[in-house]
């Protein structure tokens, strides 16, 4: 499959996963069956990993917090980082987990209903792991953009209403 084509398709459904295959076909100037086939392939290859919804939870829970936790760990035995990662990512509170280069090892993104829940989770579930040497927790203040999408109100059209 044409790489440029599948990238354009991915860009479109990344923005709006509810576009129908007919709409995608029109936007990409191809037949619906080409879209069907391409989407199937991308799903099979696990390039498309799901069709989730972007939710501004801050509006649902006014106390909701997102925290970034840096973890410094000592990898154990021959399993190394992956086993520690598995231990961490099984918690539903863990929204995102990265292994990092640099001053610390893991970056854990947590989303909780309030600050207390975060501190509880960090102290009881993360800091208590024997591989964990230390943690640093940061709280986010305002979320402007997530996964490429703005959470702020759309800008006004600054153009004159009719121009030649």
């Amino acid at each position, binding site marked *: 499959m044409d790489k440029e084509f599948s990238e354009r398709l991915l860009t479109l459904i990344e923005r709006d996963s509810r576009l129908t295959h007919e709409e995608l076909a029109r936007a990409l100037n191809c037949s619906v069956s080409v879209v069907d086939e391409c989407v199937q392939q991308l799903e099979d290859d696990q390039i498309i990993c799901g069709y989730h919804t972007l939710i501004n939870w801050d509006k649902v829970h006014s106390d909701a917090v997102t925290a970034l936790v840096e973890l410094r760990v000592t990898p154990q035995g021959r399993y190394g980082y992956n086993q520690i990662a598995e231990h961490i990512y099984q918690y539903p509170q863990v929204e995102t987990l990265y292994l990092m280069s640099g001053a610390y090892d893991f970056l854990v993104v947590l989303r909780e209903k309030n600050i207390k829940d975060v501190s509880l989770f960090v102290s009881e579930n993360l800091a208590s792991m024997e591989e964990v040497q230390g943690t640093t927790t940061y709280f986010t203040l305002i979320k402007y953009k997530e996964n490429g999408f703005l959470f702020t109100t759309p800008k006004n059209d600054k153009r004159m209403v009719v*121009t030649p």
Partner: protein
Amino acid sequence: MRNFLAKRVVDMPPSGIRKFFDVVSEMPDAISLGVGEPDFDTPWHIRDEAIKAIKAGKTFYTANAGLRELREAICDYTLRRIGVRYDPLSECIVSVGGSEAIDLAFRATLEPGDEVIIPQPCFVSYEPCVVMAGGTPVTISLKVTDEFRLRPEQLEAAITPKTKALFISYPNNPTGAIMEKADLEKICEVVRRHDLLVVSDEIYGELTYGGEAHVSIASLPGMKERTILINGFSKAFAMTGWRLGYALAPAEIMTQMIKLHQYEIMSAPTISQYAAIRAMTNGDHDTMTMRQSYDQRRRFLMKKLKDLDIPCFEPKGAFYIFPNISHFGMTSEEFATELLKKEKVAVVPGSAFGKCGEGFLRISYAYSMEELKEAFGRLENFINYLRENKK
């Protein structure tokens, strides 16, 4: 007191767009599809260059023809995009928008009584520019059945012994029409045979859809030496407010254009020129992203018009569609006015772009998909209302 006004200016009709603008301005909740400029902001990296220029105190006049570095960048870009080589020192000028370049082109070449052939529908300022330069505009009515392309026999029929120049503007505002290489070749044959000058406004040159890149008339054999090529930054790089365009032409014409520009303008805005270097050298990706976005909207609108059973040829350039609404038995101005009153959607009557635009509407798709969906929902209501009342 004497009448101080110049008759040739007083005689000039006001732009049809202006009239409509005044009406729409009174309706703050109207959705406008009447805008002739991109909805994208100027890319940040281009804006940054302007900020840097201000901070570095690059706030003086430039050379009359524009910064040498910018002219070199323009010539490189032109060679890369349309395959025509120009000399940055003798064949290039940076102007205040494409508009100034058009004015310079006419004033540098027209003698009183010289006729300039202008195919319509077209952008509103070409005719007045020809008149102000002392020339006589001769319009050709393009046909929707030709997809608003200029046909050689139409050109031939408009030529008189006084004809000096042919003016063309493709991809076209307001129709969205393009001319492909084969169409241009036939026109060039007539142009060369009658020894005409061509002024070609290619400001929408980056915006063509369906795979075929824009072909410049200057790239065809024997044409560069008789063509004044107009382009600019407004549409390709979303830089309308920077007021920057350029012209490329044979040195003997360019010398005269630069002379006029030097007396009238001095030099184009310096800060904009620094930003424009960035656009020319690093802007291709931005243009591509915008082009893909426009194309997606264009396809969406074509489908919507088809669903609504409103005839429209498929436009392959710029960011306008030009549907035919003559079967509703209203003039395009009546249609646009009613649509605005009933559903608060503003589109521009085709008649604003020349008599032969009557019966058509110019709908701009320089709007987000959300806005287009909302506007077309309202248009659908209006069409249904018209059709029901007709029965």
